[in-house]
């Protein structure tokens, strides 16, 4: 073995060590961001998910004014937890549409009755097909859509109180 080959293992180990250390230092990042941000929202038409809200199609999301699209489900616990923040967003002037994933009308009605209903339109995505088409990886998620129907921002997970200003900011940017 030549001289430097003797030190090769140690060198390799140090490289791995650096890799492990960087893996530990980095904040835990398990979210898979959608690659659809920056692209137009896929064309879709969904039936109404709730009794007192109209159905939702891609045309409803390109009205010239930026909107939020909230992806939720009545069976999802964090979705109930983010309800007050959605209400706050609505109070601040955001227009919010929603897609209920793998849901049933009665459950959605009950959920909205209990936690409040900030939505203008709610589509029912019984087979997660719109969710998959949008590159969304779970519930809840919130997308910011600009007036032309382009996805400009994705918020993964439930919206916390501290996230509200960011989302309003993104909404304002989308309106420019």
């Amino acid at each position: 073995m030549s001289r430097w080959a003797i030190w090769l293992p140690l060198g390799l180990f140090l490289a791995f060590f650096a890799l492990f250390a960087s893996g530990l230092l980095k904040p835990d990042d398990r979210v898979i961001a959608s690659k659809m941000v920056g692209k137009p929202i896929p064309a879709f038409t969904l039936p109404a998910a709730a009794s007192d809200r109209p159905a939702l199609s891609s045309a409803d999301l390109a009205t010239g004014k930026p909107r939020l699209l909230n992806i939720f489900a009545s069976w999802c616990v964090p979705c109930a937890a983010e309800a007050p923040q959605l209400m706050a967003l609505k109070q601040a002037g955001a227009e919010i549409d929603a897609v209920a994933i793998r849901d049933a009308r009665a459950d959605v009605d009950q959920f909205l009755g209990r936690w409040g209903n900030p939505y203008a339109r709610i589509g029912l995505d019984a087979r997660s097909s719109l969710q998959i088409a949008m590159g969304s990886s779970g519930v809840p998620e919130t997308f910011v859509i600009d007036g032309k129907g382009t996805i400009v921002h994705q918020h993964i997970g439930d919206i916390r109180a501290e996230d509200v200003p960011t989302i309003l900011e993104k909404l304002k940017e989308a309106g420019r």
Partner: protein
Amino acid sequence: MIAEAGLAALWLAAALAFLQLGLVWFGLTTDKPELLASVRPVAVAQGVLTALSFALLVTLFLRSDMSVALVATNSHSAKPWLYKFAGTWGNHEGSMLLWVMVMGIAGMAVALFERALRRDTHMATLGAQAMISLGFYAFLLFSSNPFARVNPAPPDGQGLNPLLQDPGLAFHPPTLYLGYVGLSVAFSFAVGALLTRNVDAVFARAMRPWILAAWILLTLGITAGSYWAYYELGWGGWWFWDPVENASLMPWLAATALLHSVTVLATRDALRAWTIMLAVVAFSMSMVGTFLVRSGILTSVHAFAVDPERGTFILGLLALYIGGALALFGWRIGTVREGAQFELVSRETMLVVNNLLLSVILGLVLIGTLYPLMTEAFGHKVSVGPPYFDRIAGPVALALVIAMAAGPLTRWRKDQARAVAGRLLVPAIVLLLAFAVVSVLAWGRIGVLPFLGLVIAAGVAVGSVAPLWKRNLRRTPLFTYGMVIAHLGCAVSLAGMAADSAFTVEKLVAARPGGVIETAGWKVRFDAITPIAGDNWTALQGDMTASRGSGSPIDIHPQARFFTAPPTNTTEAALLTRWDGQLYVVLGQEADDGRWQVRIWWKPFVTLIWLGGMMIALGGTLSLLGRERRGWLQKLRRRSAVAAA
């Protein structure tokens, strides 16, 4: 009191490890034999204390002492006793105590039974073992105390993850740990040899049984784990190339390479530096695996006790021990000569090829497992999964298996290529026959790798037993039988893997009670769904009967279980084993129209995978017994010669 006693035993053991290290250090540097004389008793006491500490933790679990935080968070008073017992190591702290106990007992065994090693190397080895143990004692005592109390004590405890509530838990982790940690002995041997500049054939023969023992247990642990995943996960898969599985495979690959290179060292006094390197790498892989599993830096199905803080601690230990050993290697190995060159056609060249291919596979598994981590540093998320490993490591593994058949048929030192070819004639003919048969049966219907796997398995199976050909079977040494059985086990396992991926029949149906499902020659009648209650779970059980041809129907009962503490759903597959395969039935969800999802697989010869694994372990055991017995016999003969003189 029990918890306090356990903790005290652990502290005492740690202090003894410190003492052991000090005794060795001063004993060797100042040449004071009286210091070295007390090293062995100290190592024995340390081993006994770790065992005591572990036994006390087991007692706490068995008594469901909820005032101990670990018991309260990981056990439940309503659990069956077996799972209270096995639950001791079904958590981070308990499993680390198991780790430390195995390390202590291994050190004790080296102190008690190692006789062949030169004295200073023996002492340096015990010093190194104490040094490694110290880090893990510190880890337990300062960041993962298993004996911590909780006040007030909860009445019931939170319960064990139901997926772990399985007899598999009682067997798989301890065996795997014995193997993982057993490799620490090889590591300590290597460090001891480097420190005392003593790498030769005698050293290799002393180290070999320790490697063999750890390797046997590792083989058993992986085999058991694979079978456990197979029946518990409920999807019929037995190996997922998941990071945690790879973490257990890597030490095994390194240990297998080590086992073969140490044989070259023992026989030809060559490959010295390489063998030392492998001994360091093998245990390093155990520690890296532990780090990957506990730190949570990779996503895994088997993710267990994930905590970045613990990860930092283990990473520190990695840096200290692996970095230290490799630095020592670089510093000292220059003085160690590699030994004579090998002839191209010789057993030792075949073993070098074996080591080359095993190391390449090890490298591929390591790179593939860590690659997502590397790309993430550049902000790019990727997945490296079964398609990569199968396609890239698979062909190398097939080449390795072929070399495995040819190796034992080649003589040490120097052989004639024509003679080796002659010995390989029969296996080659069988291989061609298998090629013809499999082609007729399944040409174009199965993938290339499974096809090659089946064909090569047939040829290699014959090649593996060929070393017994024309030999006096009663005079053939036990370790030759061991090698033959282990190699045959590889072929058997390969055949199982190939048959499973080539011929598995899958049937997914929505069935109503009363219906009959037919697949792969089997008739499964779905009679009813009945609710049943277990110790700490309830289940919906499918009452089914399975029959094949004119055979009588056999009752099978797949279950969907619901655990209350903690609340979790699991599926319990029903397995029906026949000589030619396994029927695997899973009860899924209920559909809205009163039908039930039923998943059925017929997996031809799938059991060969684990049978092969057990044969490999059995072969290792025979080999170990054979070598040891030879040592005892020689000793006896020497003694009687002395007595006669």
